[in-house]
């Protein structure tokens, strides 16, 4: 119990230390090209006139995560679309005008800017050849081939009322459910390009439409709502930084659909950096890029923090839990079972569950990692102790060692090889899982992986994936060395 309390206090302290620094303006963005470009634009707009440091939290998971982040103060402002706000956030699809939406958000302590000048709505797209072969021009033209068509739709599109469910209702489409795949949005372009699917959902300003020669199907029913791009901000941010907010409002009406599509194309096709694209548009100086080494160093620091804290937690909590599981049989089964159940929750789902409790950013990521790294440590502590020959325990008692001494002098040292193996597993799993932390804005090696995925840009993905793999290798080496120090000499393999 005392040990667990110590762990809690320690974790608390670590979190506090992490959040003390000077208060920067936090800019969020979703995990697709346009959102990165707009987020970067917001960041540079503020940087060009203000001394307040700007912290970019671009490439965060889904609308829900961004919105939680905004409400909890993990970000101050991010770009979004009126249709998304009305449907996914306010759950009031009837709200169409900016003023209506602004009024509805006001109750939540939030506000929006006017339109930035373009409408980025959902659209359905097919390959040009496919369109010609089946004479497809509008969504209604899909009906003759509805049973045979293979489609890939993004998770968000599938689940939003103004997405797939409403669409099939409006057009009386009867797709074959077996042929509808849910997949990551950026991967669906690859799928259609390789003819794995015939139909995908896109955003109407997506550059890949041009690149892959896709035809957008006309929405004759005007089913898809209008998706005007706007800044969404906390009112407290607007009040605290009026000058910066005014600067952002200065971009209202400035970005045409054409301009946005071109910028997206620059990022997706010509692989120009988001910062350069934004700078070009704003006519501002390109922020001095500190290079990929600096980026890797920063991500390494973030990643180490995530892995380190969760590891510390798993050791300080996991080992006592493992010991308790051996000592108290009924509680032991409960402990083992619940840590095993946690392990079966998919990491992304666990992150989402933790957002209401911890908000967004490093905290939920740490909480999820702590929970994940618990099982290997608890289980190996339990197994390691159970594998200790009971003769040694009885002998130790016969020699007059008390319970504590039996545990620390005999049982734990004898179990130490298994125990250390558990901590090692936890560390390596943690290094892998921590790459998902980027989806809730906690950074780490996941950040380049996520933005690389959004851009379908392999070098950027590798910038996260390779160091993560290297970190796992280094961890492996460190544990080999630790084994030489921590495992009692009498138990080590002979050299």
């Amino acid at each position, binding site marked *: 119990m005392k040990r667990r309390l110590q762990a809690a206090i320690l974790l608390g302290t670590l979190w506090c230390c992490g959040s003390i620094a000077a208060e920067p303006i936090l800019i969020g963005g979703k995990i697709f090209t346009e959102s990165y470009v707009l987020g970067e634009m917001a960041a540079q707009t503020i940087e060009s006139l203000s001394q307040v440091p700007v912290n970019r939290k671009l490439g965060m998971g889904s609308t829900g995560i961004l919105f939680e982040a905004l409400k909890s103060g993990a970000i101050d402002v991010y770009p979004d679309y009126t249709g998304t706000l009305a449907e996914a956030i306010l759950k009031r699809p009837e709200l169409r005008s900016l003023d209506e939406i602004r009024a509805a958000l006001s109750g939540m302590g939030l506000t929006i800017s006017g339109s930035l000048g373009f409408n980025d709505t959902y659209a359905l797209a097919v390959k040009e050849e496919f369109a010609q072969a089946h004479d497809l021009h509008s969504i209604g033209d899909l009906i003759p081939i509805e049973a045979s068509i293979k489609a890939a739709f993004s998770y968000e599109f599938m689940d939003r009322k103004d997405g797939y469910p409403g669409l099939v209702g409006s057009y009386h489409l009867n797709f074959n459910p077996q042929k509808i795949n849910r997949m990551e949005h950026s991967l669906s372009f690859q799928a259609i390009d390789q003819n794995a699917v015939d139909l995908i959902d896109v955003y109407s300003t997506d550059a890949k439409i041009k690149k892959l020669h896709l035809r957008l199907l006309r929405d004759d029913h005007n089913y898809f709502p209008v998706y005007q791009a706007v800044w969404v901000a906390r009112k407290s941010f607007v009040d605290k930084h009026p000058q910066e907010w005014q600067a952002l409002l200065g971009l209202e009406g400035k970005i045409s659909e054409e301009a946005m599509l071109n910028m997206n194309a620059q990022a997706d096709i010509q692989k120009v950096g988001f910062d350069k694209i934004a700078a070009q548009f704003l006519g501002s100086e390109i922020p001095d890029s500190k290079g990929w080494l600096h980026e890797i160093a920063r991500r390494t620091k973030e990643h180490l923090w995530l892995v380190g804290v969760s590891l510390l937690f798993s050791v300080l909590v996991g080992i006592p839990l493992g010991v308790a599981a051996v000592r108290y049989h009924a509680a032991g089964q409960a402990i083992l079972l619940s840590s095993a159940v946690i392990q079966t929750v998919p990491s992304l789902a666990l992150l989402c569950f933790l957002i209401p409790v911890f908000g967004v950013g490093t905290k939920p990521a740490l909480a999820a990692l702590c929970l994940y790294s618990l099982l290997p440590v608890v289980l190996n502590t339990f197994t390691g102790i159970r594998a200790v020959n009971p003769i040694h325990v009885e002998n130790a008692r016969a020699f007059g060692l008390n319970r504590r001494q039996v545990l620390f002098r005999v049982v734990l040292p004898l179990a130490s090889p298994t125990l250390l193996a558990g901590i090692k597993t936890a560390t390596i799993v943690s290094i892998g899982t921590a790459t998902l932390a980027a989806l809730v804005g906690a950074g780490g090696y996941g950040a380049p992986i996520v933005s690389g995925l959004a851009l379908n840009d392999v070098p950027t993905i590798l910038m996260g994936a390779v160091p993560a793999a290297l970190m796992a290798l280094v961890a492996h080496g460190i544990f080999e060395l630790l084994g030489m120090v921590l495992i*009692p000499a009498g138990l080590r393999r002979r050299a």
Partner: protein
Amino acid sequence: MLELQNIYKTFEDRPVLADVNLSIPKGATHALIGSSGSGKTTLLRITLGLIPFDKGYIKINDQALLSFTQVEWADRIGYVPQDGGLFPHISGRNNVALIAKLRGWSKSRIDERVEQLRKIVDLNPEILAQFPREMSGGQKQRVSIMRAAMMDPAVMLLDEPMAALDPLIRRSLQQELKSIFQRLGKTVLLVTHDLGEAVFLAEQITMLHEGRIVQTGTYRDLLLHPAIPFVSQFINAQRTLPDAGELQ
């Protein structure tokens, strides 16, 4: 001296020990012998204070076990488990010194005592630096005896000390043990199923059968005046190989 008076023990209503009486005078070596299932392991664990018993007294030098904590009792009775029972993760020396360290002995006091015991059991100093897995069976036994004697207990309790050794080593270690016991000058209770060992090492032998003591005496008493037929059966069963005359 070690005394067991009227010890009774039942496991789940099944009597395991009944009316066990045993008295070993100071400095004597006594063997408790019996086949497996006779209750001798239970009696050993009771004597070590590891499990409770239903009735009776156990005393060392007139002080009752029940008036001590497990830790206090452990300092009065030095235990040599089967096959030495050394902790595998620490060196021979650390096995010997473990309890003294936990009791806060100074390093010089520990060193002095270890050296003293090392001479008594006649062990090469290099062996103490080794880990149990590197030692021979006889070396483990000696280190284990050092460990048991470290806190200078009044009584030494040995569980099947020779069981895991091959016959040749067993023969030479028996000789050694006898002189080690003499040099230590302790009251020794030897628990074994091996009559030869009991006869060689102990002055008196107590035979346990189905939870009761059937006879206590010298080998000569057991051989010539068996209290019940089982005593003769047990002795005959442990006779060595037939001699040349019997083969013809």
